[in-house]
């Protein structure tokens, strides 16, 4: 029967001829559209190459003399914890957590023991305790070789760990329970020795808040503007300090000098308060009066490290012509990198012109920077790293801010190029590099830290940058796109409502706020979000349907296997490709 049918098909020359003609016509049309598109011929390869640059996550933990560093970085399918011999340059993958199903907080590094002979990190296992709750494990490693020496199953709600001694540690859970673990002398096994439940009311307010060991038998933690301590030997807890005249940003504790150092701010700026163990004030110093420090200041678009390692010396200024990752927030009007100052070295992650993001060690003595780990895992064949131009711009409120602009590669005089504009922290992002290689300007004004009230000037800041960019004769002011991610989309939404006619469209990455489309004429909108957040699927598809009802196309990319924050190279790459595709179509 099939043979008969095939015979009939083959013998029907008219039908066969028409089929071939239609096939050639439709496929040819499609190929013609691809060939005539404005995107560069290798746009997909460029986006894949740039999107495949592995970003650094969480934090980095150098040892005391700066010869070893533990850090986490994206892998192809997740995030890995790496151990690096900073002198020898060898990097060892200790463990890898696949993206998908893991909440981002549940994976972290817990730091070095007081003698720097051990370090620990926490990982969720593939064993489920309850629905939605995985078994958690602390892995303890040798500080010299990185070899695993012990694995300890712990409370799945673990949030912070503090080493009490090389043979004991304590951790705090979301529910404010503190567990103490000790290593048995005879067997060497680790066992839970004590539990303190509900050491304070409520849940932990911020995962960034410190939880530190103040001795072998006590820990301290921050709750809002208060510092509390718990003494295991007496089982008593005590409020060390409550700041009511200033903001307590965070605190550190020196076990050598047995002093608390509170990092505070008030209307006059930033300062430090040193306390003894009982909470009595020993000293109050301004940021620059410290004996040893390192901080980063963005000076008109150029990052500058101020590093001081001797009490009676002036700080050394180190210009860094690239981005530096912001991990700890500002101290003063700049970012503190104190915790990354170890021995004669300063550690940070960032990028240099013409180089992708990497983990760097700056030698304070000889002034040399060395890349310990690069984000580039495969050589760039078609893509290139685009060097941004930095500068300063003053907004309508009179505040000066730094900005960076990635210009389209091969700008032709008299030609007009579209512009993408945003306010976001100046850190490594794949998007500007891809945009520049697709013939777009990508302009960003540096965003203040969350606690800085000027973050609410988002619209004024972006408008100041827009006004500056609009004077560039190569910028096509009819094709200006707003770019925002997460909470920034709240500000972006305000800007769209205020000046809908200025913008051709918007690119929203994991938007917390969706844009009002009622007064916006035919915008182009691209949204990326993680599909693993069930609520996002419903919210965003309804928004897309609503927009379609208004005749507005919304390009929606719901990415499988990821949540709000992407946590693998594969996820970043896929996003970058979809972003590049959107740019090519507009």
């Amino acid at each position, binding site marked *: 029967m099939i043979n008969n049918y095939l015979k009939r098909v083959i013998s029907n020359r008219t*039908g066969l001829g028409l089929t071939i003609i239609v096939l050639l016509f439709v496929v040819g*049309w499609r190929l013609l*559209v691809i060939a005539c598109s404005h995107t560069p011929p290798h746009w997909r390869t460029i986006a894949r190459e740039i999107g495949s640059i592995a970003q650094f996550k969480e934090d980095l933990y150098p040892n005391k003399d700066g010869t070893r560093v533990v850090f986490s970085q994206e892998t192809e399918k997740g995030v890995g914890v790496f151990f690096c011999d900073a002198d020898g340059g060898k990097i060892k993958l200790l463990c890898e957590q696949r993206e998908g199903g893991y909440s981002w907080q549940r994976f972290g590094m817990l730091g070095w023991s007081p003698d720097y002979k051990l370090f620990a990190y926490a990982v969720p296992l593939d064993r489920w305790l309850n629905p939605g709750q995985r078994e958690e494990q602390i892995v303890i490693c040798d500080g010299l070789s990185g070899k695993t020496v012990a694995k300890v199953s712990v409370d799945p709600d673990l949030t912070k760990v503090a080493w009490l001694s090389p043979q004991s540690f304590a951790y705090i859970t979301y529910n404010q329970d503190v567990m103490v673990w000790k290593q048995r002398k005879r067997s060497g096994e680790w066992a839970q020795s004590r539990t303190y439940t509900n050491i304070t009311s409520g849940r932990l307010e911020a995962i960034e808040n410190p939880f530190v060991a103040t001795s072998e038998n006590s820990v301290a933690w921050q709750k809002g503007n208060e510092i509390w301590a718990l003494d295991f030997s007496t089982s008593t807890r005590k409020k060390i300090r409550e700041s009511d005249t200033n903001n307590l940003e965070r605190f550190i504790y020196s076990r050598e000098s047995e002093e608390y150092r509170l990092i505070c701010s008030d209307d006059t700026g930033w300062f430090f308060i040193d306390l003894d163990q009982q909470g009595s004030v020993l000293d109050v110093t301004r940021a620059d009066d410290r004996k040893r420090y390192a901080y980063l200041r963005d000076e008109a678009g150029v990052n500058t490290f101020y590093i001081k390692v001797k009490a009676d010396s002036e700080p050394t200024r180190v210009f860094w012509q690239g981005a530096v990752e912001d991990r700890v927030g500002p101290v003063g009007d700049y970012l503190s990198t104190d915790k990354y100052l170890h021995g004669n070295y300063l550690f940070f992650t960032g990028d240099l012109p013409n180089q992708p993001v990497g983990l760097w060690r700056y030698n304070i003595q000889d002034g040399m920077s060395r890349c310990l780990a690069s984000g580039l895992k495969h050589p760039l064949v078609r893509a290139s790293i685009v060097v941004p131009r930095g500068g300063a711009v003053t907004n309508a409120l009179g505040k000066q801010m730094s900005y960076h602009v990635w210009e389209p590669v091969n700008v032709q005089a008299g030609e007009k190029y579209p512009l993408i504009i945003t306010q976001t922290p100046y850190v490594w992002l794949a998007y500007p590099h891809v945009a520049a290689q697709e013939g777009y300007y990508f302009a960003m004004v540096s965003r203040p830290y969350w606690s800085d009230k000027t973050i609410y000037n988002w619209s004024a800041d972006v408008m100041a940058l827009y006004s500056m960019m609009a004077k560039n004769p190569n910028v096509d002011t009819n094709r200006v796109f707003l770019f925002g991610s997460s909470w920034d989309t709240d500000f972006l939404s305000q800007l769209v409502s205020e000046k809908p006619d200025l913008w051709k469209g918007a690119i929203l990455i994991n938007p917390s706020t969706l844009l009002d489309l009622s007064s916006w004429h035919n915008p182009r909108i691209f949204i990326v979000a993680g599909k693993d957040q069930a609520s996002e699927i419903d919210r*965003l598809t309804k928004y*897309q*349907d609503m927009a379609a009802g208004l005749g*507005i196309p919304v390009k*929606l*990319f*719901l990415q499988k296997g990821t949540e709000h924050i992407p946590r693998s190279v594969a996820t970043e790459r896929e996003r970058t490709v979809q972003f590049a595709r959107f740019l090519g179509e507009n």
Partner: protein
Amino acid sequence: MQAKATRFFTNSAGALLLAVALAMFIANWASVGLTQPHDPVFMISMRNLFWIVGAIALVVAMICLFGEKIWLKITLVLWLAANLSAYQIGILWKGSHAGFSVYLNSLAEAFGITSHAAYLILGLVFLYLLVGSSASLLWLWMDNTGGYLKNVCARCGKHIEFPAQGIGQEIACPHCGAMVTLQKPAGASKQGA
């Protein structure tokens, strides 16, 4: 005359439906990974709607281009065109007519045209199919005798008897296997019935 016109219509309908089916498949392929809006009538993803409509159009196109039964071809085209007309009425009823072209955005972008142009082209294609199939069917029905006609095979000279609605079809001679296009004999007399 009738045979030629009918054959032209079924062939052109087959070619157009094949083009529509291919275009929908290519549009889905070109927008892979992106979430498409839900269509306003069935509330299913436009991607799924394209797969469904594309698959149906492909089947009808193949029947139109390679099938034998002229009645079946025209009836299927009319059925498909009528369904899509009903879908249009559904869109009007839902009040989404003004902005429906946006639902064809993936199709439009894949072929470098505006979504309005895509909407217009699809509208014209299905109008042609609706009018053409209705007219062809009416013509066949009015001309349908219900009886049988006879042709002579040019190769073996033997008679081939066939139903009147088979005019225009190309078949293999049941005696020698040569391909014969069935035609209305000059001064044909109705038989049977």
